[in-house]
């Protein structure tokens, strides 16, 4: 809830490792087949991607030929590596010159740590689809990522340490499946301002819908932004009460990136007939599911596993949360009184009815409703928990 935040994202890696391909799949709606048309990137291609209205990613796609890289590390060093929020470094798993690849990586990461010490580093080991047939256990990936972590540690120890260093995470990726969405979701998740606030609102929306989960997706890329309840990568022990009660632990951990892939694929098909996707509702196997636009830049997916929940209930609640969630990304003075925002200390919270006790805040209304329906709720939860 502030002015637009600009974050610089460097996309680096050797020539032909797939940097521009993945950028095109994620941000430009290319299908994996379409990327065959792409040529080599010359020097640095900059592009700005607006995300959630309040976040702009400045994407620096850096051509990977040795001549360019040498130049980045010398003449352009200050321009390239200053003020970096995230470095995404792409390796090709099929590369035969690993020693060489690693040496360049080490030089780049040293340059990065010197100029932007707190930048996060995401290493994507790409083209996994080409080796998965012969190496299904991904031994080669394990070795490669181990090498990379070692280099990162060595670079850290060489730095005269001032304590603040961004972390490094490694992902296996392929543009042919959902693994790419997983890696990129992880990147943007750390860049979004107010992510905790978004999560708190999603959890609240989930609760009033008596749903298993409510998940927010960015509208253009369909990358997952956040989900209700426990964090995105959490294991079964970290689930909250409602998730446990409805059995969210039995769900696939890869479901969000799969949904990204499914929806993006379908959206591409729709475009061919001149139509655009605006959401759906579904009922199957006791699940009620609604996927709808939440704000201009977000879609929300609400999944309920209770047969008494109708899709109309979910749609009604989404409808009533839309105006608030749209304003809170952009404004600091809210039109809608909201208890979740009020309790958040990072926010400057101003609203016209704030001191009028007869006007309920969004989540207080729910608390009161719960008291009124206390007995009903108790009965519902007894049925749900079962014995």
């Amino acid at each position, binding site marked *: 809830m502030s002015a637009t935040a600009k974050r610089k994202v460097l996309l680096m890696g050797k020539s032909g490792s797939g940097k521009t391909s993945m950028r095109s799949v994620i941000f430009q709606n290319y299908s994996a087949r379409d990327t065959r048309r792409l040529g080599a990137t010359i020097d640095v291609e900059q592009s700005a991607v607006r995300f959630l209205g309040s976040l702009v990613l400045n994407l620096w796609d850096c051509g990977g030929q040795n001549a360019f890289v040498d130049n980045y590390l010398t003449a352009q060093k200050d321009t390239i590596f200053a003020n970096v929020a995230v470095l995404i470094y792409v390796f090709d798993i099929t590369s035969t010159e690993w020693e060489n690849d690693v040496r360049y990586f080490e030089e780049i990461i040293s340059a990065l740590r010197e100029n932007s010490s707190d930048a996060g580093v995401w290493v994507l080991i790409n083209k996994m*689809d080409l080796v998965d*047939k012969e190496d299904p256990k991904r031994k080669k990936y394990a070795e490669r990522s181990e090498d990379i972590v070692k280099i990162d540690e060595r670079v850290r120890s060489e730095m005269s340490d001032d304590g603040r260093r961004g972390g490094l995470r490694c992902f296996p990726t392929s543009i*042919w499946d959902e693994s790419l969405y997983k890696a990129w979701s992880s990147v943007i998740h750390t860049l979004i301002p107010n992510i905790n606030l978004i999560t708190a609102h999603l959890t609240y929306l989930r609760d009033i819908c008596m749903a*298993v989960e409510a998940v927010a997706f960015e509208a253009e890329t369909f990358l997952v932004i956040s989900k209700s309840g426990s964090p995105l990568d959490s294991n079964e022990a970290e689930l909250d009460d409602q998730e446990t009660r*409805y*059995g*969210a632990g*039995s*769900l*696939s951990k890869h*479901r969000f990136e*799969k*949904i990204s892939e*499914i*929806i993006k*694929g*379908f959206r591409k*098909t*729709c475009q*061919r*007939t001149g*139509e*655009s*996707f*605006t*959401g*759906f*509702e*579904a*009922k*199957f*196997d*006791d*699940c009620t*599911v609604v996927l709808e636009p939440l704000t201009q830049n977000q879609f929300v997916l609400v*999944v309920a*596993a209770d*047969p008494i929940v109708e899709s109309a209930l979910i749609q009604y609640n989404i409808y009533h949360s839309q105006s608030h969630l749209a304003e809170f990304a952009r404004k600091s003075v809210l039109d809608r009184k909201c208890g979740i925002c009020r309790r958040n200390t990072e926010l400057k919270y101003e609203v016209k009815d704030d001191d009028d006790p007869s006007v309920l805040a969004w989540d207080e209304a729910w608390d009161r409703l719960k008291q009124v329906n206390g007995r009903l709720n108790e009965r519902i939860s007894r049925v749900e928990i*079962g014995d």
Partner: protein
Amino acid sequence: MSRSQLPSQGESSRPRSSVGRHDDSIRRQKILVLGWRKAGKTSCIKTVFEHVPPSEVAYFDSTQKFEKIDYDTIIPLQIWDTPSNFELETLDVPLSSFSTIIYVMDIQADDSYHEAMLPFVRILLRAYLSNPAVKFAVFIHKAESLSEDYRGENYAEIQRALAEELEDFPYTSLQQYSSLNFSDPSVTNIIINSIQSEVRFDMTSVHDVSLREAWSRVLQGIMEMLPSVESLLINFTGSSGMDNTYLFDMESRVVVASDNRGRNDATMQLVTEYLDKFLQFADLYKCLGKRKDDGEDLENGDMSNGRDNGVPDDDEEEDEPGSWWDQEDPDAPWMTQSTKLMPNTTIALWQFTPHLVLVILVRTDTWQTRRGMIEYNLTFLRQGVRRILMEVEA
């Protein structure tokens, strides 16, 4: 080859009630898939009926012996995948027991169309003589490898190759299989003409909807109940203000019947992909519903087994004593979904039977103003389709 004790073409899809489980293979409509080495027979079958992703077809080994693939849909099928060195003599059932023969040709092998046609023409004639009702289809495969212009040219070339091979065929060599007088040119002319009008040509590719469309026409060719199901769909489409309706086989995403209006590649691609993507999505969450069934209600658990579209259930026959309708819970809600597209269209689906799902295309304003009426009419359509199937299977 003795033909006397064989079931005639018309009957084979109608199992008598006395047919037991061990006669399962007689009950099934047999489809023979032939073609040269590396023409793409196995990929034509497996990408559609066994959920093998198109990206994996390049890794298939060549088929070494007959492989019979049983598949349950609106009618039970048995698809025979053959090795490339296929000889009629190695077949352990009579040629006349096949309801359809599919010949797969690689569109890229344009220097050998005639050579490839010759063995097919021989089998085609033998099959025709033993059972004139047999259906023929030629899948002109790997169509994606050529540009639009060349595709059309090669398509015509293949049709011409078949016509010429039929003309030049030494019919007298077939004398032992038939009492017809092949030295009489009027007899052979009748055969040539009737076969030429029978053979369907379909351009196919594992990368788009064309392969499923080709299979759709193969299935429709052997569905006796097709006209009655179609007339129900047409009636519903007209009376409820639909743009289009399609009845899909859920697992394979093949259309088994439609209202036949404005059926073009773009909308077929749209509805097929819509169904495919939604079923993928539903797979991610369906375990939420199952979990409850396991705990509380065993009968429900059974029912969701029947609806399970994730796993191919090969041994379904053994654990299912009755028919699908006996195992359904009449009060369970049907699977349904609707997707809104801008600016005009809404796509929606409803599950009709464990294998079949209806997909409709409708104007969004019609959907919004008349949804209640559409869903009301739909219950009758669903009932009608189910009644027809029960009648056929009973």
